[in-house]
C-alpha cells in the first residue's frame, strides 16, 4: 500500500509557515526563550513559546473558549489541508480520518480547573473548563472545523507518539474507503510542565539544548503543532512506518533504536532526522546511528525549536520532507564539534538525497521510526 504526504503545516516557536520556518532554520536561527514563573513556585523556567502574532488569524466559533493547544492544532491542520489542495468542507468528511498525537494535553486549563478545586473546593469547579481538560478536546474542535464525521482518534504517548499516529494512519489507510488521513501533533506549555520535567531530571533551566553532548544537561520545552495530510499520492512517500516498541529501562533504549534503524536501512539512507534533545535519548540515538547507519548525515532541530513532546515527531517528519525537498540540512545548533557522527554542523548540501529516516525515542519508554522518500 502506498502512503504519501500530500501536505504539511506547522506552528512553531519560530513562527508558522513551513517554508518560512525552514528558511530560518537553514540560516541557523533558533527560537527565543521565554521565562515562565508561577506565583506559588520558587523557580523560573525557560521555554520556547509560539509568538502570539502567529495565532492572531486563527478564529472559529468552536475555538472561542478552547485552550491554546486546540488553536495550535487548528492552525497547523488547516495549513496542511490547504497545502494538500483541500479546503475545509471541500473533502468528504467520512472519507477523511483525523489522528491526534498528544503527550501532556491541555495542561493550562487542567491546571486552572484543578486549581479552583484546590483553592476553593469542588463547588468552584468550572463546567466550562472541564471539557477542555479532556485529551480529545483539540481533536474534537478540529473535526468540527474541518467537517470530519468519520474516524477521529487521539493517541497519547511520549515524544514518539507522533510516529505512532502515523503508523496508525497507515493502518487506517489500508481501508480503501478512506482517501485522506490528517495527523496532527500538538502541545502547549505551562510553568507546571517545566517544573515537572525538571523534577524528572530531564530539563535544564535555560537554553541551549546541547545535543549529543557527553554531559546530558537536559532539554528546553516548547509548544506548537505539526500536521501532515496523508494520501495515496504526494511528493513524499512514507516507505515504512516502523511501530518500534517499548523499553523497560533507559539503558535498553539503544537496543530498540538499533532494531528500528536496522529494519529501516535496508536501502540507502541519506539523512537521519534525530530526536536528540539533550537527555539520555541522545546517547541511545547516537550509539544506534553510529552502529547501523554511520554514513548518513544527522540532524536534530530541537536546539532550535525545543522539545515539543507530542508535536515533536511530526515536526521531525516535516523537517525530513523539507530536507529532501531542498536537498540541504540546516546546521545543528550547540552541538560539540567532537561528536563522531556525520552531524550537519553547518548548513549542508545533500545533492541527490532521496531517503530520510525519522527516529524518535521518547522519555517515557516509547520509540519508533519512519522512512521517507522523495518522489
Amino acid at each position, binding site marked *: 500500500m502506498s502512503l504519501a504526504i500530500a501536505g504539511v503545516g506547522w506552528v512553531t516557536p519560530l513562527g508558522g509557515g513551513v517554508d518560512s520556518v525552514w528558511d530560518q532554520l537553514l540560516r541557523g536561527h533558533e527560537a527565543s526563550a521565554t521565562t515562565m514563573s508561577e506565583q506559588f*513556585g520558587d523557580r523560573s523556567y525557560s521555554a520556547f513559546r509560539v509568538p502570539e502574532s502567529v495565532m492572531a488569524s486563527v478564529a472559529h466559533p468552536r475555538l472561542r473558549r478552547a485552550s491554546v493547544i486546540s488553536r495550535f492544532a487548528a492552525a497547523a491542520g488547516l495549513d496542511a489541508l490547504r497545502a494538500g489542495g483541500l479546503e475545509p468542507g471541500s473533502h468528504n468528511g*467520512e*472519507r477523511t480520518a*483525523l489522528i491526534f498525537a*498528544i503527550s501532556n494535553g491541555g495542561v493550562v486549563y487542567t*491546571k486552572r*480547573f*484543578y486549581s479552583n*478545586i*484546590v483553592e476553593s473546593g*469542588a463547588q468552584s*469547579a*468550572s*463546567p466550562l473548563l*472541564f*471539557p477542555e481538560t*479532556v*485529551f*480529545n*478536546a483539540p*481533536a*474534537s474542535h478540529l*473535526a*468540527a472545523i474541518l*467537517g*470530519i*464525521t*468519520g*474516524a*477521529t*482518534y*487521539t*493517541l*497519547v*504517548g*511520549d515524544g514518539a507518539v507522533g510516529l*505512532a499516529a502515523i*503508523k496508525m494512519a497507515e*493502518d*487506517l489507510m*489500508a*481501508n*480503501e*474507503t478512506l482517501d485522506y488521513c490528517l495527523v496532527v501533533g500538538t502541545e502547549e506549555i505551562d510553568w*507546571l510542565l517545566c*517544573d*515537572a*520535567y525538571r*523534577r*524528572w*531530571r530531564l530539563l535544564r533551566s535555560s537554553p541551549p539544548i546541547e545535543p549529543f553532548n557527553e554531559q546530558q544537561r537536559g532539554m528546553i520545552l516548547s509548544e506548537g503543532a505539526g500536521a501532515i495530510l496523508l494520501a495515496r499520492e504526494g511528493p513524499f512517500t512514507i516507505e515504512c512506518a516502523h*511501530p518500534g*516498541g*517499548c*523499553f*523497560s529501562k533507559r539503558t535498553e533504549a539503544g537496543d530498540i533504536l538499533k532494531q528500528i534503524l536496522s529494519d529501516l536501512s535496508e536501502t540507502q539512507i541519506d539523512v537521519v532526522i534525530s530526536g536528540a534533545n539533550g537527555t539520555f535519548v541522545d546517547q541511545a540515538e547516537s550509539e544506534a546511528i553510529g552502529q547501523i547507519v554511520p554514513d548518513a548525515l544527522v540532524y536534530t532541530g530541537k536546539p532550535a525549536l525545543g522539545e515539543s513532546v507530542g508535536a515533536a515527531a511530526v515536526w521531525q517528519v516535516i523537517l525530513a520532507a523539507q530536507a529532501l525537498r531542498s536537498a540541504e540540512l540546516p546546521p545543528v545548533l550547540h552541538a560539540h564539534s567532537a561528536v563522531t557522527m556525520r552531524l550537519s554542523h553547518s548548513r549542508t548540501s545533500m545533492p541527490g538525497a532521496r531517503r530520510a529516516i525519522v527516529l524518535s525515542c521518547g522519555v*517515557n*519508554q*516509547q520509540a*519508533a521510526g519512519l522512512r521517507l522518500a522523495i518522489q
Partner: protein
Amino acid sequence: MAQPGSATGKKDAARVAVVAEGVISPLGFGLTETLDSLRKSRDCVSPVKRFSVAQCRCKTAGQVSDDRLLAGRGEAPRSRRLHRASHMMIQALKEVLAQEPRFEPELTVIGTTSGGMSYGEYYYRSLRQAGDLRRAPTWIANYPAQKPVIDAQVAFGISAPCQVIANACASGTNAIGHAFECVRSGRYQRVLAGGYDAISELVFTGFDSLQASTPEKCRPFDRQRTGMVLGEGAAVLALENLASAQQRGAPVLAEIIGYGISTDNFHITQPDPTGIGAQKAMQQALQSAHVSAAAVDYINAHGTATLFNDAAEGKAISALFNGVPVSSTKGMMGHSLGAAGAIEAIICLLALQHQFLPPNINFGALDDHLDLNIVANKAPPAVLRTALSNSFGFGGTNASILMRTFEA
C-alpha cells in the same frame, strides 16, 4: 458512508478471534467474580473515600478495592511506586496471559481518559500547599497515560508497540475496534486491546460540575434517571487472526465481527440529540460485519443514565433495531470512562459464552419517549449469538463493536 469495518473491502478479510480476556472492575477481580456479579445483579457502587466529595452532588462511584488490588503487588520498590491504574492493567493482563501464556502481541491498543491523574493531583496539591514533594519524581514519571500500559507489558516481558487511545468515554471500544481492524486487514496476527481508568478527584469533580453525575442511584433509560456515577477498572482482550489461533490450538472464546466509528461534531459534551452519531456507528458496525440488525440478540448500551445520552442513544437504537434486549451495566459498576468499552465488551463476551442477558439495574419504568426492550433488574437466561456494545464520548466520538459466538 465510510465503512472502517470492511477493512480493505476484500471478502477474504481475516476472521478475528478473542482467545483470552481479563478484567478487573467494581464487579470483581477476574472473569469468575464478574460473571457472578452480573448474574446476581449486584449493585457495586459505594461511597467515595479516596478524596473529599463533601462539596459534590454525587457521593458514590464504582470502585476497585485497594485492599485487594495492592495486596498482590509485592514489596519491590518499583512495584510500590506504580499508580493503581498500572496495578489494574497488570491484573487484567495477568488473567489474559494465564489463559494464553503463548500469546505474543505485535501491537497493544489500549483506551484511557485520564492516565495516572491522581498522581498529578498529589503533585499539584503538594506544590500549592507547600507539601512534601520528595515523591514528586515518582508521581510525575507515573502520571503519563501510556505508563500503566507499558508497566503491564513490562511486568510480563512484553515490548510490543503501544497505541494509547484517548477518545474520551469511547476509548475502550475504539481500542478494541481498531485492534479488530488491524487483525482483520491481515496486517497483524495478534493484538492486545482494552482499556483502563482509575478514579480521580479532578475527573469526579468535573462530571459533578457538569451536573452529569447523580446524587441518587444510576438508572439508565429510566423515566426517573438523574445522571451517571463514575467507575474504574481495566479490561484486556487478546485478539488473534482466527486461522492463526486455530493453527496453534488456541481456544476461541468468541469473534469480533464488526466495528463502527463516527464523529458527530454537535457539541463538546453533548451528543447530537437526534442520535445520528450513535446510529451511524451502529450501522457501520453492522455493515462491516455483513449482518442485519435483526441478527443482533443483545445490545450493551453506553447508557450513562444522563438525560441527553440515554435519549439520543435510545432513539438511535430504536431507529435501527426492533425489540432487541438492551441493557446498560453502568448502574451496577458506574461509568469507568476509558475502561468502560473494554469492560462492557467482556460483559458481552460473558453473556455470549454463558447465554444470559446482563441486567440494567435500578430500573423502574422506561422513559416515555423511548421505545426499548430493557433487561430490567435481573439477568435472565437467553439464547444469544450476536451482541453489540456501544460507547460514546465527549467530543462527539461514537463507537460500536459487534461480537459473535464462535462457530467453526
